[in-house]
C-alpha cells in the first residue's frame, strides 16, 4: 500500500496519535464527556442502570457479617420491611438496603460534609470543601464516634458492614450506580464516622445560620435605632406559641433596643464573611425552616384515639432525603422514614408511640471577633491572656488539579472562618458532639412520654420540636436541644471574643419549651417561637431565627375549632392552602379600596378579593392578586428606606421579618413612621396599600393580560423537585402548584423547591398509619421507583404504612432472604 518509507512512518505517527487520542478519551474522558470506555461499556458501565431499573424479584443474597438469616420484603413501590432475629442484623440489613438503592446519594452526603467533593467534581467544589473542613463536621463526627454508647457503636458498625457488603457486591457484579461510572470513581468503604457526618449535614442545613452577620450589616446601614425597631427580639405580630407557660422564673429578656453600634472594622469583617457564606452551595446555611407537626388528644378525636401529623419541609430532591422502611428485631419495631446513610427511623412510630419533628429555630450559631495584635502572631486574647490557636491540617484532593493543603485554626470559641478584616470564629452547637443516634434508638424503644422525654434529654443539635402521641391517648411536644446562653452582650450580633461574652451554658432541660396533655387537647409547631413574651431565657430574635407564624396560626385555628377531628382532617390540614396573613390583611385592603378611585378592571379585582376564601389554589386569580399586592406593599414600604440608607442586604433575605412588621403596623399601627418614605410626604398604611394595589394590578395586567379572571395562581407559581446531582433534566417540574410560603402546605418562592418532604398521619384510635413523600425509593433515574410517588404526593393522597406481615401479602411484593 504505502511503498514510500517516509509515508509509512507518517502513517504510523498518525495512527499512534489517533490511537492515543482515542485511548485518552476512553480512559480519562474529555469534558463534558466521561471516560468513554468504562462509562459506555454496555455490560459494566452506566448502562447497568437498565438492569437495576427493572425492579426486584424474590432473591437469596449472601452478606458477610450476618449473624442469622434476615428477611426483607419490598412492596410494589419499594417500601422495605426488614425483619431480623438480632438487632445487629437489623442494622446491617438496613445498611445493605440503603446502599442498594441510594449509594450515590449517601456518598454525596458524606463527601459534602467531609470536604471531599473536589476529589470527584474538581475545583468547582473547593470553596465548599474548605468551608466544611473549617466548620468541622468531620471533627465533630470523629468525636461523636469516640464517645458513642455501646448500642450506638453496635448499630453504626453493623450498618457500615451492610453498606460495605453492598459496595463489594456492586463492584464484584459491576452494578455500581451509573453516577460512579460516569464520574469515574469508586466509593470507598463506609465507616461509622460517615454516618455521623451525614447527621452533621442535616444539622448544618437546619441550624447553621448567618443571621448575626445580617443583623450586623443592617445595624451598620439602617442604624441601631431602626434595626432595633424593625428587627426586634420578640415578634411584633400575633403568634401562637404552643407552650404558653407559666414559666419557671420571671426574669425578663434583655431588650434589643440597646443595640450596639458596630465599628467599621467589625462591619467590614461581617460583610466579608456574609459574602463568603452567601457564595456557598444551597443547604450550607439554614435559610429558615418550614415544617409542621401537631397532635390531637382523644377528647377531640373522632376515632377515640390520639392523632398525630407531621410534615417536615426540606429541600425537595430526587432522590428524596427519605427512604421508607419498617425495622423489626428483638429490640426495635419501628416504621417510618430514615435518612440514607443513617441506620434509624427518624420520623415514624413503633407499637405504642408516634413522633415527628420540626426545626425549633432557636439561635445555635454565635460569631466572635477575636482580639489579635501584631506583637502576638498566631495568638488571640481570651480571658485575660494570649492563647495560641490550635491548628488542624487537611489535604483536599482535587480532580484534575493539585491537592490543596488547608490549615484550620481553632480558638476557644470554635473554628476561624474568616480572616478578612477581623478574625472571626464561630461557636456553633452543631460542633458539640450530640449523640442523636442514641437518642433516636431510645425513642424507637419508648412506650410512653416519660421514656420519650428522657431520651431527648441527650439531644443537643439541631434543636427540634418533637411531637408525640401514644396509644393511650396522650399527646405532647418538646423542643429538645441546646439553647445557648451567653454571659453578657448581644448574641444576635458578632461579639468580642475576649471571654466576657462567651456561651456559658444552656437552658436547663426542665425549662425548655415543652407541653404534655394540655387542657386545649391539641399541640402544634410550625417553626414558630414556641413560647410567649414572658419566657425568661433568650432563645433568638424574631428576625429569621423563627418563622413569622402564619402556618402555626392557621394550624392552631383549624385545630381549635369546636368539633371532633379525624385522620382525614389531619390530611386536609397538611394540604391546607389558606394563607393566614391574607385573611388578616385582605379585608383591610378591600376596605381601603372602598373609598379609592378604581378603574373597571380594578373594581373587578376588588370584588374578587371581597369574595375570596384566602386559599392559594392553582386556579385562584384572587391568590395571584393577593401575592402580587403583598410583594408590592413590602416594596412600597421598605424600598425607599433601603435606597436611602444604602442597605446592602438583599431585602428578600429579611423579608419574613419585614412582613411581620408590616402586618403588625397594618393591623395596629397604621400611622407608623415607616410608611412615610425618607424625605417624602406623610403616608399611612391605607395610602401605601392603595399604591401597592394599583401597582399590582398594573403589573399583572401587563404580564398576564387584561382579563383578571385569567390571572390564576398556577400561572405565577410552580414547584420543582431538584435532581440531587443538579442535573436539571432529571428534575421534576416546574409544575403549577398551590400554596405559598405562609400556608401549611408550604411552597415558598417560584419555582418552589422546598416543602413537605414527608407527610405522615397517625390515628391511634383506628391504628392506621399513612405516609407519602415526593420521589421514590430508588436514586436510579431509569427506575420506576425514581418518581413513582410524586403524583400521589402532589394530589395530597397518602399510602398506608403497612407492617412487615401485611406487606408480605400485598400485591407485587418481593422477598429477599439474606444469609451469611
Amino acid at each position, binding site marked *: 500500500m504505502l511503498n514510500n518509507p517516509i509515508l509509512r512512518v507518517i*502513517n504510523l505517527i498518525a495512527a499512534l496519535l489517533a*490511537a492515543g487520542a482515542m485511548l485518552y478519551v476512553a480512559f480519562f474522558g474529555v469534558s463534558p464527556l466521561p471516560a468513554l*470506555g468504562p462509562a*459506555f461499556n454496555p455490560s459494566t458501565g452506566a448502562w447497568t442502570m*437498565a*438492569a437495576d431499573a427493572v425492579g426486584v424479584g424474590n432473591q437469596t443474597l449472601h452478606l458477610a457479617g450476618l449473624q442469622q438469616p434476615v428477611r426483607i420484603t419490598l412492596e410494589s413501590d419499594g417500601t422495605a420491611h426488614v425483619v431480623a432475629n438480632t438487632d445487629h442484623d437489623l442494622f446491617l440489613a438496613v445498611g445493605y438496603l440503603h446502599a442498594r438503592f441510594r449509594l450515590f446519594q449517601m456518598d454525596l452526603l458524606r463527601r459534602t460534609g467531609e470536604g471531599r467533593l473536589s476529589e470527584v467534581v474538581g475545583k468547582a467544589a473547593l470553596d465548599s470543601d474548605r468551608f466544611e473542613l473549617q466548620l468541622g463536621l468531620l471533627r465533630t463526627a470523629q468525636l461523636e464516634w469516640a464517645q458513642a454508647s455501646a448500642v450506638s457503636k453496635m448499630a453504626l458498625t453493623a450498618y457500615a458492614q451492610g453498606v460495605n457488603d453492598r459496595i463489594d457486591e456492586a463492584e464484584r457484579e459491576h452494578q455500581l450506580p*451509573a453516577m460512579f461510572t460516569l464520574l469515574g470513581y469508586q466509593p470507598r468503604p463506609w465507616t461509622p464516622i460517615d454516618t455521623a457526618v451525614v447527621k452533621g449535614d442535616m444539622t448544618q442545613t437546619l441550624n447553621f445560620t448567618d443571621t448575626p452577620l445580617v443583623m450586623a450589616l443592617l445595624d451598620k446601614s439602617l442604624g441601631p435605632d431602626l434595626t432595633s425597631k424593625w428587627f426586634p427580639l420578640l415578634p411584633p405580630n400575633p403568634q401562637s406559641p404552643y407552650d404558653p407557660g407559666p414559666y419557671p422564673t420571671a426574669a425578663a429578656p434583655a431588650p434589643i433596643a440597646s443595640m450596639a453600634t458596630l465599628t467599621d472594622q467589625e462591619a467590614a469583617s461581617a460583610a466579608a464573611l456574609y459574602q463568603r457564606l452567601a457564595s456557598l452551595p444551597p443547604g450550607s446555611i439554614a435559610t429558615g425552616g418550614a415544617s409542621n407537626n401537631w397532635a390531637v388528644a382523644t377528647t377531640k378525636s373522632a376515632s377515640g384515639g390520639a392523632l398525630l401529623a407531621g410534615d417536615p419541609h426540606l429541600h425537595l430532591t430526587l432522590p428524596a432525603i427519605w427512604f421508607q422502611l419498617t425495622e423489626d428485631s428483638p429490640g426495635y419495631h419501628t416504621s417510618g422514614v430514615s435518612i440514607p446513610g443513617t441506620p434509624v427511623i427518624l420520623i415514624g412510630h413503633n407499637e405504642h408511640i408516634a413522633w415527628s419533628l420540626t426545626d425549633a429555630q432557636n439561635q445555635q450559631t454565635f460569631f466572635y471577633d477575636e482580639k489579635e495584635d501584631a506583637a502576638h502572631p498566631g495568638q488571640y486574647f481570651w480571658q485575660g491572656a494570649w492563647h495560641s490557636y490550635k491548628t488542624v491540617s487537611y489535604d483536599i484532593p482535587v480532580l484534575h488539579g493539585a491537592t490543596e493543603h488547608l490549615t484550620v485554626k481553632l480558638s476557644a470559641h470554635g473554628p476561624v472562618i474568616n480572616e478578612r478584616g477581623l478574625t472571626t470564629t464561630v461557636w456553633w452547637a452543631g460542633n458539640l458532639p450530640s449523640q442523636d443516634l442514641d437518642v433516636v434508638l431510645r425513642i424507637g424503644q419508648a412506650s410512653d412520654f416519660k421514656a420519650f422525654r428522657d431520651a431527648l434529654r441527650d439531644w443537643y443539635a439541631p434543636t427540634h420540636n418533637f411531637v408525640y402521641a401514644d396509644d393511650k391517648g396522650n399527646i405532647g411536644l418538646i423542643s429538645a436541644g441546646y439553647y445557648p446562653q451567653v454571659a453578657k452582650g448581644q448574641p444576635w450580633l458578632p461579639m468580642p471574643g475576649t471571654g466576657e461574652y462567651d456561651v456559658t451554658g444552656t437552658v436547663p432541660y426542665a425549662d425548655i419549651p415543652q407541653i404534655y396533655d394540655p387542657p386545649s387537647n391539641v399541640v402544634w409547631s410550625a417553626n414558630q417561637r414556641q413560647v410567649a413574651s414572658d419566657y425568661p431565657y433568650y432563645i433568638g430574635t424574631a428576625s429569621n431565627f423563627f418563622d413569622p407564624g402564619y402556618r402555626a396560626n392557621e394550624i392552631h385555628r383549624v385545630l381549635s375549632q369546636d368539633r371532633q377531628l379525624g385522620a382525614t382532617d389531619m390530611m386536609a390540614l397538611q394540604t391546607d392552602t389558606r394563607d393566614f396573613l391574607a385573611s388578616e390583611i385582605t379585608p383591610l385592603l378591600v376596605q381601603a379600596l372602598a373609598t379609592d378611585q378604581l378603574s373597571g378592571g380594578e373594581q373587578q379585582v376588588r370584588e374578587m378579593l371581597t369574595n375570596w376564601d384566602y386559599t392559594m389554589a392553582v386556579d385562584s386569580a384572587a391568590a395571584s392578586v393577593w401575592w402580587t399586592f403583598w410583594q408590592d406593599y413590602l416594596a412600597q414600604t421598605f424600598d425607599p428606606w433601603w435606597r436611602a440608607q444604602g442597605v446592602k442586604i438583599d431585602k428578600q433575605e429579611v423579608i419574613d421579618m419585614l412582613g411581620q412588621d408590616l402586618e403588625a403596623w397594618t393591623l395596629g399601627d397604621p400611622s407608623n413612621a415607616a410608611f412615610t418614605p425618607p424625605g417624602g410626604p406623610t403616608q399611612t398604611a391605607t395610602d401605601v396599600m392603595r399604591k401597592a394595589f394599583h401597582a399590582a394590578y398594573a403589573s399583572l395586567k401587563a404580564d398576564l393580560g387584561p382579563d383578571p379572571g385569567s390571572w390564576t395562581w398556577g400561572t405565577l407559581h410552580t414547584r420543582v423537585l431538584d435532581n440531587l446531582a443538579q442535573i436539571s433534566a432529571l428534575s421534576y417540574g416546574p409544575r403549577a402548584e398551590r400554596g405559598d410560603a405562609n400556608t401549611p402546605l408550604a411552597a415558598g418562592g417560584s419555582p418552589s423547591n422546598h416543602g413537605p418532604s414527608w407527610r405522615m398521619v397517625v390515628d391511634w384510635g383506628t391504628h392506621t398509619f399513612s405516609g407519602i413523600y415526593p420521589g421514590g425509593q430508588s436514586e436510579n433515574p431509569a*427506575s420506576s421507583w425514581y418518581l413513582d410517588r410524586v403524583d400521589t404526593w402532589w394530589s395530597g393522597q397518602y399510602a398506608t404504612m403497612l407492617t412487615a406481615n401485611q406487606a408480605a401479602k400485598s400485591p407485587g411484593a418481593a422477598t429477599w432472604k439474606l444469609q451469611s
Partner: protein
Amino acid sequence: MGGRWFGFVVVVAAAICCAGVIFGAWWVTFLAGAALGAVIPARLAMPAGSLAGLLAWGVLLAWEQWRYGLGPAAHSLAAIMGFTQLGPVVPVVLTCLVGLLLGLTGAWAGAATRSVVFSGQSASSR
C-alpha cells in the same frame, strides 16, 4: 482473503471483544483491533477492526435491550450528559461509536506498526 474468511475473522475478533467488555476490560477492543492490524492485510485490517468493535458493543447493547429495555436508561444518560434535546439516541450512538473507534484505531495502529517494522524485511526478501 475471501469474503467468508474476512467474515470469520471479524466474528472471532468481535467475540474476543465481547468477552473483554463483559468482564469490564473494554480496552480489549483496541487490542483486538491492533492484533487484526498486525496479522491481516492493511486494506482489510481497519474495516475488520471497526466492524469487530461495532459488532461487539452493538450486540452487547442489543442484549441489554432484550433483557431489560434500554429506553429509560438511554433517556437518563442523555440527560446526565446534557444531550436532552438530542434525545436518547445519543448514548446509543456514542456507545456504538466507542466500540467502532476503539477497533478502528487499534487496527490502524497495528497495521501501521506492521508496515514500518516489516518494511525492511519485505524489501530484502524481494
